[in-house]
């Protein structure tokens, strides 16, 4: 078990991508009660668009910013044109969910038509490796983790110290009270979708640089992000991030020490066990909605 620190380190590095996606899911859910299954595909589309820009000479750092912007704007458009018309309230919970499933399929197909099925290699932001706890990690992954942590810190800052961020938290806590003191729900919703999809694009960008840009880039990470969200609680940003990192580490520990074959099953078994003990996740607010 001498490589346990190494396994945990690589788990945390993988977990940072899951955490960004998880955070995006939670931010969007808190603002509009919508579970956005298209978040991964939206982010992937943004990465594909930037690969074209990179092929035309855009440096990786600028491409990352561009990807965030594209995904954020796409998220805003999704909310405005597909989600808002469905109406608010829990009646549309599963309808909104199925709409995002449909949107995900559309984006997936569009990527296939425009960029084909061959994976596209994305130049990493940096090359080289660094040794941490006796395990070598690529600079790309280290930077990805660093940027992921920085993005999370920026989001924490936004929600903690800016008026609009505080308003978003307020709105998530009590839609009605926020409305009667004059906070615009539409602005909150747009912003939440921008941020949610934008940070998902950061995750997608580094996943692409690590492997390659392909239409299924976020499939398995999104799956783990959802696991993290449910582990941490669908209403807690901190819980989702902690949950996602936990999944990253559990996944790596299970893959290394238990079985590379059953790691998904082991991780999901743990989540189901946790949910049976605490149905709202370990940091989520107890909340029951019926459709």
């Amino acid at each position, binding site marked *: 078990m001498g490589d346990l620190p190494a396994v945990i380190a690589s788990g945390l590095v993988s977990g940072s991508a899951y955490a960004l996606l998880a955070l995006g899911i939670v931010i969007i859910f808190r603002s509009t009660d919508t579970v956005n299954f298209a978040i991964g595909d939206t982010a992937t589309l943004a990465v594909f668009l930037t690969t074209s820009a990179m092929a035309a000479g855009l440096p990786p750092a600028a491409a990352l910013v561009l990807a965030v912007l594209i995904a954020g704007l796409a998220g805003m458009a999704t909310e405005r044109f597909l989600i808002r018309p469905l109406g608010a309230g829990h009646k549309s919970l599963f309808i909104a969910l199925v709409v995002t499933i449909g949107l995900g399929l559309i984006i997936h197909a569009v990527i296939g038509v425009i960029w084909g099925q061959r994976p596209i290699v994305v130049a990493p932001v940096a090359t080289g490796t660094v040794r941490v706890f006796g395990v070598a990690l690529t600079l790309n992954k280290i930077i990805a983790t660093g940027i992921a942590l920085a993005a999370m810190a920026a989001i924490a800052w936004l929600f903690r110290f800016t008026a*609009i961020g505080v*308003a978003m938290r*307020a709105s998530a806590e009590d839609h009605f009270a*926020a409305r*009667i003191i004059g*906070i615009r729900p539409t602005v909150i919703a747009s912003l939440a979708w921008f941020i949610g999809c934008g940070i998902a694009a950061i995750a997608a960008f580094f996943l692409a640089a690590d492997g390659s840009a392909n239409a299924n880039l976020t499939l398995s990470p999104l799956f783990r992000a959802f696991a993290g969200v449910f582990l941490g609680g669908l209403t807690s940003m901190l819980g989702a991030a902690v949950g996602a990192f936990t999944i990253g580490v559990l996944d790596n520990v299970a893959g290394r020490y238990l079985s590379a074959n059953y790691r998904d099953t082991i991780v999901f078994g743990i989540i189901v066990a946790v949910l049976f003990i605490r149905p709202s996740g370990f940091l989520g607010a107890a909340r029951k909605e019926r459709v």
Partner: protein
Amino acid sequence: MSQDATSMIEAAGVEHRYEGVLALHDVSVSAPAGSFTAIVGPNGAGKSTLALILAGAIRPTAGRLLLDGADVTERAGRRGLVEAGVALIPEGRRLFGQLTVDENLTLGAFGAGAGRAETARRLAEVYGLMPEAVRKGKDRAVATLSGGEQQMVAIGRALMARPRLVLIDEPSLGLAPILIDKVYETLAMLRQTGVTVMVFEQLAVKALQYVDRFAVIERGQIRHQGLASDPDAREMLRMGYMGAEAA
């Protein structure tokens, strides 16, 4: 209440049904600028609904809402009339319990569209009105404050919007008598600064000590209205609350 042209806020023939449930029936009330009014009545009489309608937070199913004589019924039901200077402290206060005192207050100004500097100025002013415990605990989550402190924060959050009219639903709810007096004293002070104040109160006698006008609402209808100084006020309350069959 007289429907004089100078009424700052006026509900005219308002009816409200929510999913078929009748809450208000042909209610007309108004408050002149600078007045201190109490709408009193037992639980479930329709006070909260009336408060929401006067704040523009919900749209009445019939009747009109007038602000400074202008019909604003159509504007109601979205974000209230915050930008027109109407602030509501709803039933149960509806503070953001997980947010700090500072954040709750800041949002009051943010919702009314105040800028950064203006918010800071108002914040200093409002903290001046707050009790010591609230000022010291400005970085505490509101949920951890006592009931009285929370009520003061709720008033503070409303004041951050620089309102001309403040509507307060059940200011006395869950408070010890000494705190109730404190709350009413604060409201009276506010009124001195020229703000129009309306309270919606079950504990009528307490309210009558501070206000100048009152109306008794019962079962969704206005039963009596008059001046707080009226010697018959107590009898009106008894009739309104307990019915007329008594000897």
